[in-house]
């Protein structure tokens, strides 16, 4: 027991590496929030564009979505990180991780929003159209608000699952929490920094799960 505590909860090691892990914590939060905001918005934008049923555009969207859903995020991340410089594009590792994870989230979110949009009852369309509201107006005022409410539970699940992939950014040298924790672990020859990182992830994702529950109940309506 003592050895366990010494290995995972070594206060001296923790104190020494706390500033480093805290800095990584901040990077992880920045990356996570950037991914969530842009990923969910891009996903919604794609679903809205898809609703207009312009064939060639829809093919592109479906190609994008299926590609990003099929490939493991880590593979995409590595391809972008090592591949982009070859075609003359250099971006910071943080930006690459942001773009890749936001795109992955957008791909999944698009499918979820799309399922929501198509599951809104045909009668809703007819009622709105019969009052003279056009296709776009009906989509924005009647269909999408309902689609979003319906999709909040699967959307939050998916968002949390993908946002946790910020840890993958450690592979491409982003100084996020796991990177820092692993480096510290190597220097200290002690796993306590990893314990701090685990606590850090809980600090980020626990509130996120709670927030999603709050959103679910806040915007739910009885059926």
């Amino acid at each position, binding site marked *: 027991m003592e050895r366990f505590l010494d290995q995972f909860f070594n206060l001296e090691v923790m104190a020494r590496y706390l500033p480093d892990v805290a800095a990584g914590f901040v990077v992880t939060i920045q990356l996570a929030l950037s991914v969530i905001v842009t990923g969910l918005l891009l996903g919604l934008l794609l679903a809205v564009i898809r609703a207009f049923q312009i064939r060639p555009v829809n093919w592109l969207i479906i190609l994008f979505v299926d590609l990003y859903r099929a490939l493991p995020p880590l593979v995409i991340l590595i391809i972008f990180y090592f591949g982009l410089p070859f075609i003359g594009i250099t971006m910071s590792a943080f930006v690459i991780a942001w773009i890749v994870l936001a795109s992955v989230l957008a791909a999944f979110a698009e499918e979820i929003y799309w399922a929501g949009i198509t599951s809104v009852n045909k009668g809703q369309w007819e009622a709105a159209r*019969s009052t003279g509201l056009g296709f776009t107006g009906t989509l924005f*005022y*009647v269909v999408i608000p309902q689609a979003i409410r319906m999709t909040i539970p699967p959307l939050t699940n998916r968002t949390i699952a993908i946002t946790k992939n910020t840890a993958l950014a450690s592979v491409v040298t982003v100084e996020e929490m796991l990177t820092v924790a692993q480096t510290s672990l190597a220097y200290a020859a002690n796993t306590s920094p990893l314990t701090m990182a685990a606590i850090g992830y809980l600090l980020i994702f626990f509130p996120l799960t709670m927030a999603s529950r709050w959103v679910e109940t806040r915007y739910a309506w009885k059926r």
Partner: protein
Amino acid sequence: MAHAHDIASKFVVEAYDIHKSFGDFEALKGVNLTVAPQELVFIIGPSGSGKSTMLRCCNLLEQPSRGQVKITGEEITSRGVDINEVRQRIGMVFQQFNLYPHMSALGNVSLALRKVKKMARSEAEDRAHAALKRVGLADKAGNHPTELSGGQQQRVAIARAIAMEPDVILFDEPTSALDPELVGSVLEVMRELRESGMTMVVVSHEMRFARDAADRVIFMDGGLIVEEGTPERIFTDPRSDRLKSFLHSVTGH
């Protein structure tokens, strides 16, 4: 509720030779329908007779495969017609109410006023309140559809239609989804509308209401109008076998 369009034609709704096919199925095989101002026309018939499809052709929720529809003299089946403009003048009430579940009753009634008629929120809400009051739901403006009974929901749907001050309201089986004890409140509102001079086309199985309130009853079967006439004539002196057997099946005697 008079519009400049009224002068152009002596009919509010005119539909000529309406055909509608769904794949191989011919739902309408050439139907003519004219509705005069302030007239209440009732369309009855067995399910699958094409009566709902006919009604939905009047505001182009169904696009007729062939034929011509005019609203207050303006042909709406011709190319280049702004259907969203035309639909503001044709209210519609659905069997399943189709209220927007994410909005209050007030929101349901005022949405089109704000987004289609481009009224300011306060003006739209004033008008929506007036429409809700007219259907007896002044105190339910803040309630969401799920907090209302079926009868109340349908009255909100009627308020949504009348708030637009249309030339005609189409009712597609407005009481068919209601529990029997809630039907009366909806019919009461429809009766009040009729007395105030609203032009109405009603597809419904409420034969007693048809008898009391309709100016004309149309019996459809197999995608065609089989008989039409005054309620008195249709209900007491049915001539075709099909109408006789239909009346027998719905009244049970």
